[in-house]
């Protein structure tokens, strides 16, 4: 289990916002209700993780994947979440791909820029510098 208990809480401000957006305008949500929902959300994460992990273990995998989480939702009888989750995942994956392309593009632009700057110099120097330039690798977390 985590060392510091408070870390298992989800941020109050975000939870409150999600609640407000889900309810009709102007509904007053008590502090205790908010806290209970926040705690319930933490329990939900744990429960979903445990469930998803069962599916991963059945498949002899050590890494939880998207399929495991979706299977967990079904197991937990939250089929209502499946469609919105799948759609959100699509958008997310496209976004990730876009980010990769953007950083690829940035790297290419940077190289182009360096080339243009070196243009004014001796060709010898330019060749040397280009050889010395280290390969830049994008590290994805």
């Amino acid at each position: 289990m985590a060392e510091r208990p408070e870390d298992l809480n989800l941020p109050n401000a975000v939870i409150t916002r999600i609640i407000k957006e889900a309810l009709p305008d102007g509904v007053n949500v008590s502090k205790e209700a908010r806290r209970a929902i926040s705690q319930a959300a933490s329990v939900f994460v744990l429960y979903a993780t445990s469930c998803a992990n069962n599916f991963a273990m059945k498949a002899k995998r050590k890494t939880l994947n998207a399929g495991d989480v979706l299977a967990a939702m079904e197991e937990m009888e939250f089929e209502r979440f499946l469609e919105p989750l799948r759609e959100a995942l699509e958008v997310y994956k496209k976004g990730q791909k876009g980010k990769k392309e953007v950083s690829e593009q940035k790297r290419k632009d940077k190289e182009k820029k360096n080339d243009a700057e070196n243009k004014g110099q001796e060709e010898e120097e330019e060749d040397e510098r280009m050889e010395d330039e280290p390969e830049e690798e994008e590290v994805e977390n």
Partner: protein
Amino acid sequence: MSENSPHADAHSAASKGTSLPVSRVKLIMKSSPDVSSINQDALFLTTKATELFVQYLALSSFNGGSGKETHSLSYSDLACTAEQTDTLQFLTDKLADTIMLLTDILPKKIFARDYLKSLEQIQEEKDADD
């Protein structure tokens, strides 16, 4: 507990597709025994599912509760709904109690009926070990 400014939240929500911080969700997931690693998509989905769950819990409790007349949502609305709804039963078992213990509980209140029950169980187990 440090909170992001609304502006920062909106920015990260837009780029990440979630409002809840993925890092915090990951922390909770990792506290589960036997979980070695979680891929990015799974992390995203769990975060998103949790948001959907918060919406679902809030709305079901509001619709099912007495607060509808008074235009409010109270703890007892939640407790009633949790008790009466099949999909919310997991909130009333031992795992739930553990998390609540760790995230600071509301002892007077009603997930507490089961909380007290499991306290007794824990005490019994302790006594059995002694």
